[in-house]
C-alpha cells in the first residue's frame, strides 16, 4: 500500500516575526524555516504505519520552489522512501484551490491509497488544501485526527469533536489531516540523514495555472495590546480591585 505525506516548508512561528516597512511581506532576513508542525504529526503517523509493515512505500510531496526541498530531505531522513516536488517558483502566490489542483493532477496517475496532511499549514492557516483535494479526487477525508490505524482497506482514525472523542472509519483511498497527535514526531537519526542523501527527489512540472486568484494586498503586525493595570495590592484588596475593574468594563 502506497501513501503520500504532504509537507510544507513554513517560517518557524515560535519566534517573534517582523514585517517589512512597506507591508509587502514578513521580514525574511532572520527567519528560521521548519516543516509545518501538523505535517510533522501526519508524517509521523505515516512512518508508524510504515514501521508496522502496513505501507510498502511512503512518498513525501511538496509544492514549492527549490528551497522547499529542505523539508523533503527532512522527511527522507525520518524514513520516507522517496520525495516529489511539484515545481512552482512562488508558492505563496498559489491559493488552496490552485495548490490542490496541482497535487490532484499529479496524484491521479499514481497508485496511492492514503494521503496524509496537516490540519492547516501554519503560514497561511488556510486549512483548505486537503479538503479541496478530497473533492477533486472524490475520496473521503477527515481532519483533526490525533491517531490512526490501517486495517485492510479501511483507515480508522481517532479525532476530537465538540461532543467528545470519536473513531471514524474511511474506506480507502482516503485523506487524513492531522491535528497535534497523541504521539510526538521522531527526530531524524544520523543514519537516516546519511541515507536521505541517496534517496531520490523527483521534480515534476506543474500542470495548469500556477497563480491563484486570492491576492495578498499587505501584511501587518496585529494592533499592539497595551499593558493595562497590574495590581500588587495585598490580598484581599486586589480581589476587590479586580471586581471593580470587571464592573467598570460592564463584564459582570
Amino acid at each position, binding site marked *: 500500500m502506497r501513501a503520500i505525506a504532504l509537507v510544507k516548508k513554513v517560517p518557524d512561528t515560535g519566534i517573534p516575526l517582523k514585517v517589512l516597512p512597506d507591508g509587502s511581506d514578513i521580514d525574511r532576513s532572520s527567519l528560521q524555516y521548519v516543516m509545518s508542525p501538523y505535517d510533522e504529526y501526519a508524517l509521523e503517523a505515516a512512518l508508524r504505519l510504515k514501521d508496522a509493515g502496513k505501507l510498502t512505500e511512503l512518498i513525501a510531496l511538496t509544492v514549492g520552489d527549490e528551497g522547499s526541498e529542505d523539508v523533503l530531505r527532512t522527511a527522507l531522513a525520518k524514513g520516507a522512501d522517496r520525495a516529489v516536488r511539484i515545481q512552482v517558483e512562488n508558492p505563496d502566490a498559489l491559493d488552496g484551490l490552485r495548490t490542490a489542483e496541482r497535487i490532484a493532477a499529479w496524484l491521479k496517475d499514481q497508485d496511492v491509497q492514503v494521503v496524509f496532511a496537516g490540519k492547516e499549514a501554519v503560514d497561511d*492557516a488556510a486549512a483548505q488544501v486537503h479538503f479541496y483535494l478530497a473533492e477533486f479526487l472524490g475520496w*473521503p477525508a477527515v481532519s483533526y485526527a490525533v491517531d490512526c490505524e490501517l486495517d485492510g482497506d479501511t483507515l480508522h482514525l481517532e479525532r476530537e469533536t465538540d461532543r467528545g472523542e*470519536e473513531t471514524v472509519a474511511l*474506506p480507502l483511498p482516503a485523506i487524513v489531516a492531522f491535528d497535534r497527535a497523541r504521539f510526538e514526531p521522531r527526530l531524524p537519526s544520523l543514519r537516516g540523514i546519511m541515507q536521505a542523501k541517496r534517496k531520490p527527489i523527483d521534480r515534476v512540472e506543474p500542470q495548469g495555472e500556477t497563480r491563484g486568484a486570492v491576492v495578498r*494586498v499587505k501584511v501587518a503586525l*496585529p494592533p499592539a495590546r497595551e499593558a*493595562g493595570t*497590574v495590581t*500588587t495590592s495585598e490580598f484581599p484588596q486586589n480581589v476587590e480591585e479586580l471586581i471593580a475593574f470587571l464592573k467598570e468594563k460592564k463584564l459582570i
Partner: protein
Amino acid sequence: MAMVVAFVESLQGELKGVARETVGVARKVADALNAEVVAFGGGRKPSDLETLGSAGAAKVIWVEDERLDHFLGAPFAEALQQLFGEDAVAFVFPATRLGKELAPRLAARLRVPMLTDVISLSFEDQAVVVEKPLYAGKVIGTFKLESRPLVLSHRPKAFMVEATDGTTAPVEVAQVNFSDGAFAAKVVEVRAKDDREVDVQDADIVVSGGRGMGGPENFKLLYELAEVLTQRTGKKVAVGASRAAVDAGWMPHSHQVGQTGKVVSPELYMAIGISGALQHLAGMRTSRVIVAINKDPEAPIFKLSDFGVVDDLFKVVPELTKRLREEA
C-alpha cells in the same frame, strides 16, 4: 433577489452561539451585493430557527436528517451544492471545525478559491477585501478576491453583529438526494463527553488555567468561578486550559487554547496560572478584555492583559468566586 447563504451550525438539535453571528456576517455581504440572506443548516432541527430572522435571515432552509449530526462535511457540501450551487452569490461559514471543512469542500465543487478565518471584511467594487490572521496569529494579512460565488469562513466572535428588529424568518424543510459517497466516512464510535460543557470557541467568557493550577483536582476552582459568572451574567462561560495543563492530563485537549488548540476571542479571557507563552497568546490575544492572575510579576501575560493580579491564585480565585456569589 440574489442570495447569500449562511451556514448555521447546530449541535444535537441546538443552534450554536456562533450561528447568529454567521447570519450577521452574511448580512454584511448581502448588503454589499444587493442580496438577501438564506440561513441553511441540517441535522436534528432546532426549535428556534425562525429567530434567525432577527439576525438578518430572510428565510431558513433546513435539511432534517440525523445523518448530518456527525460533524462530517461531505454530505453538507453535497446539500449546499444541490440546493444553492447555481444561485447563490456568496456562502458564509463559521471558522469552526465543521465550517472550516465545509467551505473548501463547497469551493472545490464550485471551482472557486476561498478565504478562511476572516476577521474583517469590506468591499471595493466587485472585490471583497478581508483581513485574516497568518503565521499563528502573529501577523494579519489583507487579501482581495473577486471570484463568484464568494466563499469565506469568519472567525467566531470577530464580528460584532447587531440584532435587527424582532422579525422572524420562515423555516422551510428541504430534501436532498445524497450520493453514497456523501456518507463514505463513518463515525463508528463516539465516546461522548458526559457533560454538556460550553465550548471555549462558543463562550462569551473563558476562564483558563495553566500549569500554575498544580493538578487536575484544582480545576474545580475554575468550574466554580465559571458557574457564578454564568449565574451573574447569563452568558456562556467555558473553562479553558494551556497546553501545559493539557499535556499533564489535567484537562482534555478540546479545552486547549492556543496555536495547537483553539483560537478564542471572548468578551473576557481570564488567564490563571498561565505564563503567556507566544503559542498560548496566539489563541487568545484577540479577546476583548484579558485578565491575568499570576504570582510572578514578570510573567509575560501581564504585558498584554488589561488587568493583572500578582498573587497566589489559590487565594485569589476562591475569594473572587465567594464575593461574586455573595453579591449576587
